[in-house]
């Protein structure tokens, strides 16, 4: 399946609808990154949410920056915190 990569802020209700979820692949990631199925319905949704186009590499870099920051923050936490919360893991965009 082919994808497009964008950033867009989820404003809440009707940011994506049931109908849209059935028309194209959609998955959200840290940094307001969205992976969108590459079809005409997906394109219409990107326009609706004023999505900013990214290459896959750019989108992955946004996610990686946030994950790495979270790892550093986790490493500085107490042992009690670490016992209850697993260390953030890498996220690989499809």
């Amino acid at each position, binding site marked *: 399946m082919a994808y497009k990569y964008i950033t867009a802020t989820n404003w809440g209700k009707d940011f*994506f609808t049931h109908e849209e979820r059935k028309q194209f692949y959609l*998955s959200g990631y840290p940094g307001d990154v969205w992976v969108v199925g590459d079809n005409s319905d997906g394109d219409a949704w990107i326009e609706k949410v004023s999505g900013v186009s990214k290459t896959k590499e750019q989108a992955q870099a946004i996610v990686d920056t*946030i994950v790495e920051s979270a790892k550093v923050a986790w490493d500085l936490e107490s042992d009690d915190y670490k016992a209850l919360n697993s260390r953030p*893991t890498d996220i690989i965009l499809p």
Partner: protein
Amino acid sequence: MTTYKGIKGFTVQTLTSDPSTPSAIGQVYYHSPSNTLKYVSEGGAPGGSWSSGGNLNTARTTGGLAGSITAGLYFGGNTPPSTQITEEYNGTAWSEVNNMTETARDQMYGWGTQTAAISAAGVTGSTGGKSKLAEEYDGTSWSAITENTTARQAGCSAGKVQTAGIIIGGKDSTGPGNSDNNMTEFWNGSAWSELNNLNTAGAYMAGGGSSTSALCGVGGNRPAQNESWNGTCWSEIAEQNTFRDQGGGAADSNTAGIIYGGEGPPVTAKTESWDGSSWSEVADMATARSMGSGGTGGQSGGPTSVLGVGGQIAPGARTNLTEEWTAPVLKVNTVSTS
């Protein structure tokens, strides 16, 4: 010869629009605009999907949830720290209302409606102290009710009405550290009583339903011991397809429910529906999350209508995002001769 009229009491009708009410299930009709013969069957989770709902005013994990996708109530949780914040949902937006009155806590048990809900037990995140405090919400404010028997957190709950709900399992303080709990306690509107225990103690489970027919203990820290409740005792049921804990859950009964999100790890967006005999994968959430609503509270709307509220998204941030699950009550099918 058996005829349609003989079975249904009337001939095949000609309709200009597809039926939309459950009473039409089983009906065969001629759809004149499309010149096709159609029939109506039960819908359900396989035709469902998640859409975006209004964002919470305060991002947090592990609050309690009651109500429906058009009249929801999300209370307590962890921002961090634990909070007493309560928000009401009208199907479009969340509005902050009066706080809970007892000590701020999260991972509590909750059920009921937007105007008549219960919150029980939980943990105060800043101290780790487990609670047996209980409160009821009347649509305007919270007030204390009789405490439940055992202080605990992070189990699951079921209840459609304020005066009949159960809290199940979780983590208690009876042993060294945090011990898994197997207790079922029933609230009848005025007092708590103990019912039969889970077969296997556990915590961080998903579930929902009513006090007489529920799914609880789905997933959690005991992956092979999902159980269903018939009002008297717990029975082991089939495992879900994707193991996860700290997911959300909702059920209409012990034969109809869904689980969503959670953490394997990794945090997942996967949703599965239960039909009384097996689990099926259905449409994923748009944003994977764990520790949202339902992970520690019960919803009675599943599997056709569910709120997924707040929680924690990778790589560890609290979220204010809401997703609404809806699935059609009925499915319109076209008769094919091929």
